[in-house]
């Protein structure tokens, strides 16, 4: 079995952000392991994604739904479409344990989303948990902690 290097983890974090920024959402779906979650907590240091509200807690089905919806002819809030841009600090490797299959990175992100005349900026700390699936590194959990998770937002349409 080939093992990932630390750089492989870091490269994947950058690659994922670029795929989103370029609107290649079908490719984005391929980056995930089968039983994986995109989690954006509502509360600072939230522990429980299920019995409390989160901003997002999405499995493969719900991620696919988002991506398919973005292409839809009657997706009115995406006419015109939103665009986004990620600026990433270099990810730090928080866990690297090939034996246990544990790979975790932490990345500071500035995210800008725009549509029509509106543009907003969000700052987040993102943790990626990876796993090896048939010699390929896949995302198992992506946890996005917004700096202002308790603020009132308008629509946040794409992926941070």
């Amino acid at each position, binding site marked *: 079995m080939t093992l990932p290097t630390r750089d492989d983890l870091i490269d994947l974090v950058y690659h994922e952000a670029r795929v989103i920024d370029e609107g290649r959402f079908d490719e984005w779906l391929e980056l995930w392991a089968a039983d994986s979650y995109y989690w954006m907590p509502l509360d600072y240091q939230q522990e429980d994604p299920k019995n409390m509200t989160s901003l997002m807690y999405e499995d493969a089905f719900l991620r696919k739904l988002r991506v398919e919806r973005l292409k839809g002819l009657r997706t*009115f809030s995406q006419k015109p479409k939103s665009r986004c841009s990620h600026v990433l600090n270099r990810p730090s490797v928080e866990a690297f344990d090939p034996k246990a299959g544990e790979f975790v990175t932490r990345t500071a992100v500035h995210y800008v989303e725009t549509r029509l005349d509106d543009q907003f900026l969000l700052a987040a700390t993102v943790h990626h948990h990876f796993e090896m699936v048939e010699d390929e590194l896949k995302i198992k959990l992506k946890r996005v902690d917004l700096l202002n998770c308790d603020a009132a937002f308008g629509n946040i349409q794409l992926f941070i």
Partner: protein
Amino acid sequence: MTMKYKDNPQAVADLVRPAEVHRDLYIDDEVFELEMKHLFASTWVYVGHESQVPNAGDYFATEVAAQPILLARHTDGEVYVLHNRCPHKGTKIVIDRAGNTGKFFRCPYHAWSFRTNGKLLAIPLKKGYKDTGFEQSEAGQSGLPPVGAVKNYRGFIFVRMKQEGISFEDFFGGSLSSLDNMIDRSPVGKLEVAGPPLRYMHSCNWKMLVDNQTDTCHPMVAHESSAGTAVEIWESLEKDENTKTPMAMEVIAPFMSPYEFFEDMGIRTWPNGHGHTGVHHSIHSDYSAIPGYLEMMAEAYGEERAKAILGENRHNTVYFPNIMIKGPIQQLRVFIPLAANKTLVESYIFRLVGAPDMLLERTAMYNRLINAPTSIVGHDDLEMYERAQEGLHCQELEWVNVQRLYEEGEDLDLEAVENGTTERQMRNQFHAWKKFTVESMEAEARDLADA
């Protein structure tokens, strides 16, 4: 600017016709100020749930009728609702959304302190006020002033800002059955707020949100992009007889139900602007049973009553003017008006005390899938409100139409059940809007004339 509506109750009354309303109701700043001062002050407005302040000294801060308000649990166990404004120079006493203040509130500016029931406790260097007539001043007399009236209804706290006015029971009447049903779904008859609310900022008038709660002709159109796509994806997946429909599909798919489904489900209206969709069935009717729950309910209430409680599937109940609740999933949304074109929506979920956690899991899922700023369902609703908010500035057309299934001579002071696609509940809301706003304006005019 000339004042068109202030001191002119007739002009305000003329904004509401039996089956249409003037666009100024949504876009005019002066109308907004009047409805905060009169409608929101004379009616019973939801503020919060007592589980948000479980212990003495607990408080939380919010806004009612565009004024800063704080709720506090006093040592006598009562919840007091006070104006969040120091009587000295106006400083807000608390600015964090919730916390515990201990035995008293202390203003951070000059340290005047107040008991948790609002009474003035102490002022540093009090002797400086000796022989100044301070006791007769507004500051010397008021402490943190309470709102006009408070009602704790089975844990749900409502206020009337005005001292005098309609009683809680007269205002809500039969509509309390929806709140009762939501609470009775706990085997011990008790709810608890679970976690912080979603906070969703809307660049539109608050009434667009309230109107939308009983608008049953939009889901299959506006939500085709999310619910319709979900159904398509689900149908395209390979399945066998063992494939379980995921909870997310159960939540989202019913939004695509056809018009007939919504026609048949019915709408009930009560006097004073309250009403609900889902008289016979609703988008919540076909959720899977949660293991063990019915047994717990039968144990607590007896089988027949338990079935009756769970058999109610009211969809959205509007308590006019500022909340909507969903009994079958224990969710409550508060519409907090900030300006004519700005509304904060807070979505709370409740734990059914004594019931299985899986119910809360579904409630939390519903909240994030449907009502979050990151929700693909909410996105299209907000898009429609914002387009309407802009479109209403069009000079060519002045009226918003709410005529569907209108009949001349409609009596909105009577409870009624109608076809589920009627706009009667919207008309009911505007009728109440006019009644309470205009009555309060006329009362003010009389008081001024008397003075």
